[in-house]
């Protein structure tokens, strides 16, 4: 099915396509953390972690704030319950429901035709 391309959602999906970045989001869901904390936790260089955080930041999933010498990361304003993503998951639920409804109704139709 072709749905309207949604650049914002695409950015989220791209950001979420990487297991480390999903891990970072899970981690930030528990508590804010500095880039150094995250790099340590994910056994990564500071530069590598900065890159991942940058991707999440551009997708609006994470915001960072520099206080003194420490850059703290937290879940972004869009967080994970981004409205478009939610509506898409809601659509997927109803799409699956309607597929099943179609099956049930086709069953009724066949039964009727046989009677």
């Amino acid at each position, binding site marked *: 099915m072709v749905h309207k391309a949604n650049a914002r959602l695409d950015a989220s*999906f791209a950001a979420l396509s990487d297991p480390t970045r999903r891990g970072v989001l899970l981690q930030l869901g528990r508590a804010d953390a500095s880039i150094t904390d995250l790099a340590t936790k994910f056994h990564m260089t500071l530069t590598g972690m900065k890159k991942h955080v940058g991707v999440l930041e551009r997708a609006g999933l994470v915001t960072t704030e520099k206080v003194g010498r420490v850059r703290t990361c937290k879940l972004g304003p869009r*967080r994970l319950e981004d409205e478009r*993503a939610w509506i898409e998951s809601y*659509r*997927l*639920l109803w799409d699956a429901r309607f597929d099943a*409804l179609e099956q049930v*109704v086709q069953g009724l139709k066949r039964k009727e035709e046989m009677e």
Partner: protein
Amino acid sequence: MNGDSGSAATPTKNPTTAERTSDRELVVTRTINAPARLVFEAWTKPELLQQWWTPKSFGIVFVSCEADVRTGGTYRFVFSHPSCNEPMAFFGRYVEVTPPSRLVWTNEEAGDAGSVTTVTFEERGGKTHIVMRDLYPSKDALDAAIASGATSGCGEQLDQLEQLLATRPSKA
């Protein structure tokens, strides 16, 4: 349960759309390849409703399904989901039951913040166009429903995203 006799009942899959049409309203549409009276029947007989309301791919399972589908009648659906410790109950009242064209019910599990759902079934050339409108009492109520991630009733947003990623067509 439909027997898996390999019968391809639907040659072409009709698209489902979902849209937030206003501060307070969500609208879902779909066309079903059958007359409205059959679609209405599948929507209003609990034993048929149970066969489609909880799609397997979403991991939701009916624990119980009670529905007294007439104006003023009540319903209560109880589901279980692997990510929920407790079963989830959805309940409310049928405000309008007009076969085979219109159904209106309340969603009372969220208290005052619950939506009122209106489904219309419009038959065109042997097919039925379904429009389902969920009207929330306020913008805040709809925002809150979205923020809670309550598509399946339990607020596991990450699960939901994982699911989205898993079900996204690879050649999108």
